[in-house]
């Protein structure tokens, strides 16, 4: 075992310097093994994300600059800005939530619904988002969740609350029917009916599990 004459300690490990005072030690003495394996330095490689941030910001800066030099009627750089933001929100959900597909679907409907309403408003407020896009999105989300959890064999307790949540999202078109004059109420009605059927089915067939999960998740 090597020794440090300055600190007067014995040193485990194959070293040329003392781990305490960092002075040179006598390397003629045979060393003994360190209890620590040498672990190479590790850095998280975030280059892809950095690049994406850089491109996003550059695109936004350039579009506002171009708009300033060549003004036009529609404020299109604002749309670019929100386009970029939409991309980031969807990327976030996909990266962060993919371990639980039911959860990812729930977050996606929520985010995409808001984005749709925004785009509709920005592009003439024709009402296509509430009439068609959102109800259809909800219908497909409920169906895809119903199928997905069976394909990936998700445990009941891992998806049930998200299932309930997306059924409640599916009931949202009720307010569209109530407060807006829809040009075509069929998608909304289908969305509401499907959500209600699913909620009834969940309560009847999965009531016990649902209650157990709620007790756990909401304990005070």
């Amino acid at each position, binding site marked *: *075992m090597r020794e440090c004459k300055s*600190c*007067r*300690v*014995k*040193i*485990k*490990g*194959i*070293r*040329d*310097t003392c*781990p*305490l*005072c*960092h002075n040179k030690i006598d*390397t003629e003495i*045979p*060393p003994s*093994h*360190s*209890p*620590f*394996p*040498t*672990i*190479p*330095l*590790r*850095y998280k490689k975030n280059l892809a994300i950095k690049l994406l941030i850089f491109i996003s910001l550059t695109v936004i800066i350039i579009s506002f600059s171009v708009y300033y030099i060549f003004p036009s009627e529609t404020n299109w750089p604002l749309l670019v800005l929100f386009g970029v933001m939409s991309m980031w929100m969807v990327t976030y959900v996909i990266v*962060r*939530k993919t*371990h*639980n597909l039911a959860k990812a679907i729930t977050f996606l409907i929520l985010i995409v619904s808001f984005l749709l309403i925004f785009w509709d408003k920005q592009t003439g407020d024709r009402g296509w988002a509430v009439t068609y896009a959102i109800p259809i999105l909800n219908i497909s989300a409920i169906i895809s969740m119903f199928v997905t959890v069976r394909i990936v064999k998700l*445990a*009941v*307790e891992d998806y049930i609350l998200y299932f309930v949540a997306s059924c409640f999202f599916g009931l949202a078109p009720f307010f569209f029917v109530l407060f807006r004059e829809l040009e075509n109420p069929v998608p909304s009605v289908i969305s509401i009916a499907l959500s209600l059927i699913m909620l009834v089915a969940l309560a009847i067939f999965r009531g016990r599990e649902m209650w*157990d999960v709620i007790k*756990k*998740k*909401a*304990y*005070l």
Partner: protein
Amino acid sequence: MPKKRWIKMDNASKIFMATNNSRDTKVFRLSADLYEDVKPDVLKEAVRIAYDNFPLYRYIIRRGFFWYYLEESDLVPEVKEDDEPPCAGIYGYEKKILLFKVRYYRKRISLDVFHALSDGTGAVWFLETILFHYFKLLYPEEFKGEVSPSDKGSIDELLYNSFDKHFQDEDLTAMPNLNINKAVGGNEKAYRVKGTQTPDKRMRVIEASMKVKDVLEISKSYGVSLTVLVTALFMIATYEDGPRYNGLLISASVPINLRQFFKSNSARNFFATMIVSYRFSKEGYDMDDLLQSIKSQFEENIDYESLLLRQKQLVGYERNLLVKLIPRPLKNIFLNLINMSSNKKISIATSNLGIIKFNDKIERYVENLFLETSAVRPQFVCLSFKENLTFGFTSPFIETEIPKNFIRFLTDRGVEVVVSANRVGKKEEEEKDEGMQKLPG
């Protein structure tokens, strides 16, 4: 499908959940050095048996709306050769993984544990159980008729939330007064150690081993306990490294094992913390005055009545309905703010796990035991095992001045010390490659 059991998280764990991050992982590592190289296949089997007998270590962390909770899992622990820095992060948001890792390297078996699961005492029981089965598999004749260390209490006892068991008091559910800090500095900010952070957030670890009787002799000569001596020494080591000005306040955070006052066979967290402080002057310090001051602060804090009151207040705090109803992510933010403000009052942290006693037959095959923990400030954990006293110094900084000062104080007084350190940074890694060629075999 059988229903999974779940348990509420204890008082201390909640803080670890809120404050753990990629640098301060809240993971501690307990390592046993054997006399011979570890046999991986035997270890894997031993871990499997121990795991079956130690229900707590099956639990994983789940998130509720208001609190985290622990839920039983059917995951299988993986045992492999050590390939991560000590105390590397275990818990990750969105990850369903066990809260401990068993690793081996040459003669060493290491158990890394996320602190929200268990404290040092709980981890010692689990490691002893693993070692018991490891040696029982290797030497079946010798261990015939021996009872596994995990079977001392009942299986359920290991799972008890001792905070709730001892400190639930209906009278104290009102908002408590959290400012019952008896330390010298009161609420004053303490000196905070600065340094160069390690490049990839790993802990700087230095382990030191010595004979416990040598250090006991020194503490006896000053008329104080070993814990008081080493705490005071670490404060001195910090003072010597720090800036010189009058009234420099150095405070050490010290955990108190509550099992000594409140009977508990639980492997879960059961400790309180106290802060002891001393005001240094520009010219230096008076050793006797320092030791007496630390000694009396220890006595004041480690007292049944004051611990009972303090803990009841803390448990009362989390039983307040208004506190309960705050959504979990917001609670985390508040707990982090509280933690940040209390960090200002702490310079260093020390901890003495005390005397660790294994079954005699296990001790015969184990040379030494070390414990080290993730840290946001220079910290050590010491313990005594067989005739040894071992220290695990950890720090987020590359610098080693404080442990150096500490160890030199002991070697100056004739204590024989063996040290080892992990490698952090490029320079130290290069040193290894040169050295490797010189080692025969």
